[in-house]
């Protein structure tokens, strides 16, 4: 598989990105499909009673109505991608990166660097998750408003 991707891409950076995308797409597509499958049929009926056409219904219910969930899926997928980065960088070591450093340090039993790298990966991951969470709350305020009891 790596061989095939190496042939298809022009440099190490492209190879890493292609491998990451290849790893993420199945998760992303299935999560998106499950969001669409979970849409209540009644929402389309509501659009009909409001005399909306099929395109407007698609826009209102599937696209705008589910953007917050799409971002949430992206957030989860980003977390998976972040976990995969060490693996991908380990597979394609020519470009360097945190994963390459981690694997090399591990090979020479340089545990101080391994732990430091693990902590950095963990903290950067947490930071990005927090950032995406803030973005979600800012773009879609209805996801974070207090729910009435």
């Amino acid at each position, binding site marked *: 598989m790596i061989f095939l991707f190496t042939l298809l891409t022009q440099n190490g950076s492209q190879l890493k990105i292609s491998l990451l995308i290849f790893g993420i797409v199945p998760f992303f597509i299935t999560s998106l499909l499950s969001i669409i499958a979970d849409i209540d049929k009644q929402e389309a009926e*509501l659009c009909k009673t409001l005399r909306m056409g099929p395109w407007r219904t698609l826009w209102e219910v599937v696209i705008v109505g589910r953007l917050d969930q799409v971002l949430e899926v992206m957030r989860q997928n980003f977390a998976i991608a972040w976990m995969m980065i060490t693996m991908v960088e380990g597979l394609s070591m020519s470009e360097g990166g945190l994963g390459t450093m981690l694997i090399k340090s591990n090979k020479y039993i340089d545990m101080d660097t391994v732990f430091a790298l693990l902590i950095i990966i963990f903290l950067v991951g947490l930071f990005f998750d927090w950032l995406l969470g803030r973005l979600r709350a800012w773009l879609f305020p209805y996801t974070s408003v207090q729910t009435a009891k």
Partner: protein
Amino acid sequence: MTHTRNEIILSAEGVGITYDRVILRDVTFQVHNITRPEVYQGQVLSLIGRSGIGKTQLFKILAGMLKPTTGTVRIGLDLHPVQAGEVGIVPQNYLLFRHRTVQQNLGIAMERSEKKRTEAETKEVIKEHSELFQLTEHLAKYPSQLSGGQRQRVSILQQILTGTKTILLDEPFSGLDVLMVDKVIELLVKVSLMDEHNTLIIVSHDVENALAISDTAFILAAQQGKPGATITETIDLIGLGMAWEKDIRQNARFREFTEQIKHKI
């Protein structure tokens, strides 16, 4: 009580639906425009039946959302076949667009109404109506911030603002406490008083509350030896002197009558 049953404004003719078995059979009924001297008001009807009898199917057929296997539903003064969008629906879960505020949910309802309005006029209409529906302070909120009763009011108002005269309400009393039921009844009466052609069709298994608010009720039940459910009885509550009475539920004769009907569904 002086009243006149005028032209037919909704008619179901031999409506039936069959899946792997017959669900509804030969459902036929008519809704007349009822007028009273010096009172400007619409109609309130109930379709009463027990759970699982096919009320939801009939509900969807009346709204033009589902094509019946047999028969047709006609609507309007010209009695044309009903099409989706001509009849408003207030679903049992008071569904609203969760990504839109109350104001936006109401605004979107007016986008496609027959009467074209400017943005300022739309805002004005929403303001007027939200006062009547006690929603003014909730206009900036999202549906998830509203209580069940508030959501129901938004849902009803949303359908009214589309300009639809006929509104179907699915189990509007279910899950509400006694005080809330009184408020809903009050609100529905208010809606029926808004326009002479406003027609509210309540689909419910709650015999007492449905009868208390209606001028006409149809019982949807199964007949012995025949498959599927049909209209087994039409109750003219005006003729019985039980319509348009605010405190009818305290009336002993009404209570006795309700008990009789409960045995028929």
